[in-house]
């Protein structure tokens, strides 16, 4: 992937034409465009993000952002800078979100909630949940419980969890944060 020559300038006229088609509703042009720019997005993210697990999330968030922002592309301008700005914004968003999450959650996961961070699958997570944690989870308000379960039990990304819960990513993060705080309080009380 990293050995692929960067021929963005050569491809720009095609991308521009496909993007104009996409703005007019041409699905075939849009699909060609997305498939062709996907490796570029991966390369740009790969060059700036060392967290391999997060890269694919960032790339997909960038694609979603491109989709939502497609009306802001102006045909008289080159496509590549517009696209790279969207990917760069997605990287910045991820870095900021990671910083916020680290600030809020770092002390909860390893110490208080050993069973709340299962390694991969939902089934394994269900097996690993301790009865104490299950009771604590059950006592949370439904919205907070759902947020914690979606992110830490089902291991969805924030964006996917937000879509599943039918709320904005920001609202989901707030719910999850309140849920962690409540869980920590509940489990801390149980230990004493």
């Amino acid at each position, binding site marked *: 992937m990293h050995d692929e020559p960067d021929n963005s300038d050569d491809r720009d006229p095609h991308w521009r034409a496909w993007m104009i088609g*996409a*703005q*007019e*509703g041409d*699905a075939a042009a*849009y*699909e060609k465009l*997305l*498939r062709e720019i*996907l490796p570029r997005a991966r390369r740009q993210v790969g060059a700036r993000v060392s967290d391999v*697990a*997060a890269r*694919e*999330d960032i*790339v*997909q968030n960038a*694609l*979603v*952002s491109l*989709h*939502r*922002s*497609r*009306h*802001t*592309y*102006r*045909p*008289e*301008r080159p496509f590549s*800078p*517009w*696209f*790279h*700005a*969207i990917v760069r*914004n997605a990287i*910045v*968003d991820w870095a*900021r979100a990671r910083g916020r999450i680290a600030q809020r959650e770092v002390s909860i996961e390893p110490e208080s909630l050993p069973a709340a961070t299962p390694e991969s699958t939902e089934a394994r997570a269900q097996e690993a949940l301790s009865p104490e944690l299950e009771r604590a989870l059950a006592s949370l308000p439904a919205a907070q419980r759902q947020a914690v379960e979606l992110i830490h039990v089902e*291991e*969805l*990304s924030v*964006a*996917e969890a937000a879509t599943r819960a039918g709320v*904005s990513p*920001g609202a989901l993060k707030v719910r999850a944060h309140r849920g962690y705080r409540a869980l920590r309080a509940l489990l801390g009380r149980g230990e004493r």
Partner: protein
Amino acid sequence: MSTTSAEDRIRDLVADLHPVRRIPPLRVAVAWTVLPWLVVVALEWGLGRARPRALGDPFWSSPFALAILSGLLVVGLGSTAAALASSVPDRARTMRWGLVACAIGAGIALGGALLQLSGALPIADPGWWRGSLGCLGHAFGLGLVSGLVALRFIGTAAMWRPRASSTLAVAGAVALGAGVVHATCRAGETYHQLVAHALAPAIVAALLVIPLGLAMRRLYGARSSD
């Protein structure tokens, strides 16, 4: 980590595709944002609510007064351009130029006001700030429609930093209004000119920064928070 593959994501996005209306070019958007300010000012003058000073007025020969006026107009245009550019993905360079213009304009306006203040007598009327509230409100009113047009553009383009973009938009609109207020206000106190004219964009923006950010996020959603 995402459980959806990029292939699935592309399929979803293609399935969701529908025609969209492009945003106008940035310079057209800036022109459409500034136009309501010109119309409101023309209406005010036409209705006799506020008239510019006569050409022989000492205001037009005061370097301090002219520095405040020109600085406010530069802040207005620079801040508006930066606000609109901040919502278009590949216009970071325009945004930076807008911010530079905004900083230069603010320096000129505040410099003029502070230099004027340095030679001023102590405040004679302790109630000077009451008149300042009137001028602040007037500047806000003159820029209101322009501010709303800018916020609408920001919200419907690709808003990324709602709080920063909306604050810049409001500061720009109020700066344009404050420029007109400065050219028409008959109050001569230097403190008044500093607080109610030169600092008007900063004061109104500081008061509105949090509610505006929340309102923009609620009205238009946001890909990120700031």
